[in-house]
């Protein structure tokens, strides 16, 4: 048995070696051909230029554009320039599907960035899977699996990972026994709620109430008063716009509940500075958020050549007029997504979707990224897992380079 097993192995090995030799030979022939081809690589930018998610679109576009400019200046990918083909999903799944079809069958793009929300990513997944187009999306729903979208990778922290850190901050750091949850009624926040609840309960905390407010609503007093009546030790919040976060902070102060500790997602870290334009900055010392490791520092870290800081400088140079309206955090992971794709194409020598997929699954952590170390596997295509995230306290407490201080610094 053992012998035959070994022989089979040897046979397999030799067959693989032979196949490999053939493949290398083929590459040897096709490689130079590819390199000689001056056909640009077409990158479909399928994001929300208009509609309710246009803020994500704005920031995603800035990151992708910067990445493509840098790539092209450095000679392109495999000697080919990258050309962006813009498409607007209008924050609407129907339009997303139509534009996905246009990109795949009319424009014949080689890869795609977007969409930037799970609802639209799930809608276009069949289109890009059928067309075998590698895709970087920023979507956090766990329904997006490698089975449904083998060529899709997400650079956004998923609902599970964010919920994990938000809940663990409450149970581990605050050691709170009770918590209330307040979210906006956007898809991202609502899909996070089940995970927040799950990890809170696993950590031994009771959820005293759950409330939601309409996106960009003027007043959250009623929600807060109703949650306050449950008398929780802590409040988990998920507000995706700075206006909502600012109003929420103000309303907490209005009803005299500004002493409650808050735990928020990525968005809280990103939006705090804008929110403080209308809210009292002092209130934020009770606010925690979840950050990508790349955005953070601990005192004593070597701050020279910090990738995220340098990225922000380049982003500012590329967008001198509207840098203030950008969120470098979102642009940053969009940038990372393109860089991961570039590395995969260079390593595999082309745009073959199967090879790119396998390469990213095995080698994503070798790519130099600005948001933090990315990683994927055959089981998960979320490049930003739990490990790349870290809780921070007080998102206004940044160093002179604009990095957030980690909550777990010694």
């Amino acid at each position, binding site marked *: 048995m053992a012998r035959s097993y070994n022989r089979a192995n040897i046979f397999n090995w030799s067959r693989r070696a032979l196949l490999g030799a053939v493949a290398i030979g083929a590459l040897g022939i096709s490689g130079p051909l590819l390199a000689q081809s001056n056909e640009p690589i077409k990158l479909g930018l399928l994001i929300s230029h208009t509609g309710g998610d*246009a803020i994500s679109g704005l920031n995603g576009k800035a990151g992708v554009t910067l990445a493509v400019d840098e790539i092209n200046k450095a000679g392109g990918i495999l000697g080919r320039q990258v050309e962006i083909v813009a498409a607007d999903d209008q924050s609407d799944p129907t339009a997303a599907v139509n534009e996905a079809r246009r990109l795949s069958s009319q424009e014949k793009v080689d890869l795609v960035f977007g969409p930037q929300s799970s609802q639209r990513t799930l809608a276009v997944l069949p289109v890009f899977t059928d067309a075998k187009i590698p895709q970087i999306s920023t979507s956090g729903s766990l329904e997006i699996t490698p089975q449904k979208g083998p060529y899709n990778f997400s650079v956004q922290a998923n609902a599970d990972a964010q919920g994990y850190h938000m809940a663990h901050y409450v149970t581990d750091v605050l050691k709170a026994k009770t918590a209330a949850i307040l979210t906006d009624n956007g898809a991202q926040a609502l899909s996070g709620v089940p995970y927040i609840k799950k990890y809170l309960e696993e950590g031994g905390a009771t959820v005293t109430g759950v*409330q939601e407010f309409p996106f960009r609503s003027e007043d959250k007093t*009623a929600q807060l*008063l109703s949650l306050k009546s449950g008398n929780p030790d802590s409040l988990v919040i998920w507000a995706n716009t700075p*206006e909502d976060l600012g109003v929420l902070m103000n309303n907490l102060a209005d*009803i*005299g509940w500004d002493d409650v500790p808050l735990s928020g997602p990525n968005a809280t870290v990103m939006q705090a500075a804008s929110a403080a334009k*209308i809210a009292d900055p002092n209130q934020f010392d009770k606010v925690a958020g979840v950050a990508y490791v790349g955005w953070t520092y601990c005192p004593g870290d070597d701050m020279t050549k910090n990738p995220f800081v340098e990225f922000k400088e380049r982003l500012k140079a590329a967008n001198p007029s*509207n840098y203030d*309206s950008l969120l470098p955090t979102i642009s940053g992971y969009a940038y990372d997504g393109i860089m991961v794709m570039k590395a995969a194409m260079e390593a595999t020598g082309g745009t073959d979707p199967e090879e790119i997929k396998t390469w990213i699954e095995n080698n994503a952590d070798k790519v130099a990224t600005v948001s933090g170390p990315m990683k994927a596997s055959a089981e998960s295509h979320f490049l930003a897992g739990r490990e790349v995230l870290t809780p921070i306290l007080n998102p206004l407490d940044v160093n002179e380079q604009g990095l957030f201080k980690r909550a777990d610094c010694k």
Partner: protein
Amino acid sequence: MWQEYAIILIRGIGLGSVYALIAMSFNIVKVSSGILNFAQGNMFVLGGMLAYAAVALFGQPSFIVWLLLIPVAAIIIAVVLLIQGYLTLLPLSYSDDQQSWLITTMAVSIIIGAVLLLVQGPNALMVRSIFPNVPLFGMRVPAPFLLAIGLAVFWYVVLQWFLSKTLTGLAISALWQDPVAGRAAGLKVRRLQLLAFGLSGLIIGSTGFVAAPIITIASDSAVAYVLNGFVALVIGGVASNTGALIAGPLVGVAAMLATFKIGGEFQGLVSMLILVGILLIRPEGIFGSTAARRV
């Protein structure tokens, strides 16, 4: 416990006063020309943008400067509305199809939203109130909520006086009663209708300016205000400013109470049920006039 209800009541009335003001600005145009201006929400947001511009220009303006800036903002928006009104009324004068306004006003709303998105981007503008918060029942209320209540009462009084005591106002009221007879009686109908557009601009411009710190000033936030204004208008009864003054706060308080007692996710449903319920009991709204005899 009662303090919580008191605070909800006051904030609900404050926010509802904004809806009431939007409804009143609808009313005056509706009365004069039968037009419901769907772009009114954008005009409201533009008013808020002027407040943002004022802060950008004057830093945090003093009370006096701020007070003087209200009419300036109102007049700027009134001019914008005059232009829109002129264009909206244009096809009505040469076509026997009198419903083109429905599309043109919605289209203007889409155009303004699209231009704001291109110029200003998708982010919202945020304005900090120049007034301190007002302490009430052991809690505090931002001043713009109370200022909105005051502004609603102010415009209500002005409108009631204008429509019942001045010749021009009476002429506009007459157009609502019977546009054909009004024309026959020699009223300069188009001019009166334009005036109404301008007046609605004064109302909505001042409202946007005053309420700027508590509203969302963004390219796509107009729809929500149009809808809340319409709900107040329909519940109060079209053409009735008294109805608007009462229905606006009613909607505001009901939405907040529903959120407080049932949950924020049902806010939309509760508002709709109130709307349907009131319409089923009183199809013309609370203060709407009942239909004239048809035969």
